[in-house]
């Protein structure tokens, strides 16, 4: 369950290997560091360029470290309003998804129903459909129904695309809450929905946090969907405005692009750290996929 940090796993090499163990550990460390450096160089560019007013596509230590790039992009039009819209979109779709997923998971987890299995397999099937492929028809549907440029329709669409995965994860989390607790409530005559709200949901709060953050991160990082569905500049989230910032002026201002990128990435990095600290992070996510 633990993310890469679990120290317990390293000591697992059999004791018998003791004589040959030290050199192999040194070699493993060396190779890992080498691969790590390859992954680190592009990341280093991002951080160094953000504080370098004269940044280019090359990676170099800035002559002067300044917050100039950040101050240049922290205006209402460039970063602030788009970030707020990103927040509204992500919060909206995560809330809708989690509510719908909790409600749907309850009968799937608690009742024996003939269609539960086919339904779950359909949902699992939905988790693996390439969303990119339905964007052309979604766009033409949005044009026909007048829902183009509507923030709430975009949020609902993003909620729907994350829903299959969310139902799958929520149902798995709910299965691990013992039924015996609710049975007491049923005996006392509480309706199922009351039992769900008062007993099940509070018990699965960590799991629901994971689902919520997962959907939030997906919506926050989504570029293609708002790029197609939100056409007016004043409605576009950061993912879209940052792209225009990249392509607009011919010559790219790498320093400001990096600063904007960091501001835009910060919330998902923080959320990822929260999840990986509390529940095992992405791993719980990929684990949930495997059922």
């Amino acid at each position, binding site marked *: 369950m633990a993310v*890469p940090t679990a*120290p317990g796993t*390293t000591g697992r090499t059999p004791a*018998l290997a003791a004589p040959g163990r030290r050199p*192999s550990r040194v070699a*493993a*460390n060396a*190779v*890992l560091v080498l*691969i790590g450096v390859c*992954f680190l*160089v*592009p*990341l280093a*560019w*991002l951080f160094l*360029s953000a504080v370098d007013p004269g940044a280019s*596509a090359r*990676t*170099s230590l800035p002559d002067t470290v300044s917050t100039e790039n950040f101050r240049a992009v922290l205006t209402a039009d460039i970063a602030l309003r788009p970030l707020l819209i990103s927040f509204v979109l992500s919060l909206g779709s995560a809330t809708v998804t989690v*509510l*719908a*997923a909790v*409600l*749907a998971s309850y*009968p799937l987890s608690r009742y024996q*129903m003939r269609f539960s299995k086919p*339904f779950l*397999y359909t949902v*699992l099937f939905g988790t693996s459909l*390439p969303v*990119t*492929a*339905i*964007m*052309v*028809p*979604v766009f*033409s*549907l949005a044009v026909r129904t007048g829902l183009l440029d509507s923030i709430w329709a975009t949020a*609902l669409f993003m*909620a729907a695309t994350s*829903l*299959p995965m969310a*139902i799958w994860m929520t149902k798995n989390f709910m299965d691990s809450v013992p039924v015996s607790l609710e049975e007491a409530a049923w005996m006392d005559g509480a309706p199922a929905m009351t039992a769900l709200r008062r007993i099940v949901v509070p018990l699965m709060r960590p799991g629901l946090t994971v689902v919520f953050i997962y959907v939030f991160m997906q919506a926050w990082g989504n*570029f293609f969907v708002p790029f*197609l569905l939100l056409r007016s500049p004043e409605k576009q989230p950061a993912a879209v405005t*940052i792209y225009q910032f*990249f392509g607009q002026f011919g010559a790219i201002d790498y320093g400001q692009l990096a600063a904007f990128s960091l501001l*835009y*990435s910060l919330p*998902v*990095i923080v959320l*990822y750290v929260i999840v990986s600290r509390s529940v095992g992070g*992405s*791993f719980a996510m*990929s684990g949930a*996929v*495997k*059922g």
Partner: protein
Amino acid sequence: MRILPLVPAVLLLLLFMAGPVLWSLYGSFTNAALTGPNAQNPQWIGLDNYSRLLEDPDFPRSVLLTVVFVLLSAVVGQNILGMALALLMSRASGGVSALIGGVVVSAWVLPEIVAAFVMYAFFTGEGTLDQLLGLVGVDGPNWLFVAPMFAVILANIWRGTAFSMMVYRASLDDVPPELVEAAQIDGASPTQRLFRITLPVIKSTIATNLMLTTLQTLSVFTLIFVMTAGGPSNRSMTLPLLAYEEAFNFLDVGYGTAIATVMLVVGALSSVVYIRMLRPGKD
């Protein structure tokens, strides 16, 4: 009454997922366009879009590029590098593993468009890669023009390896140490232990992970769109980009939808295979 709580989820899925999929099927049989008379009243043109696909030289090339992209960046790159990282981490010291794991995961946590900018700066002319090559006296070109597929494949490996690494790290923990020890006592070499014991034990995880990374990579759009936009002269135009270009740049929605439908079918077939693999005794 009992199924009432399912209603919101089912409505959302029907409206926003099943609806577009069916509409996609229908649209691919029409000459729908974004502007002009065909935008108002698309005509039913049967299989014309599909027969056009077969005659269009861009389409087979796009299929080939998509296959190359998925095969090299996901199946080979992310999986093998992810497995290598996981195996190395189980031997390396805890501190080093945690640190390098953190670096690899950072590339994956960044929003896709930010990862795309970073990779653009890395591969562009006089970018970071050319700067590094300059250190050994090589005058590097603009990789995005000279070798666009090379650039987007490496970019996708950089961005996506973390997922496979985390999946394999956890699955390696499930390999019973007694098995490996027993093989060691019998004199099996490290390579033999890897190929005869470790990999066979986790083979269902490998299959699942291959399928997941394949599906994710099949629909990669933003990374390529930002780095090369499918160019130069369509040399990195994978299917998602081709569908986008036909529908939105050439305003030929019907044809773009036909391409998207092909992707949907490929994706659907892959997920059926994936579900079949999950099924036996796993729920």
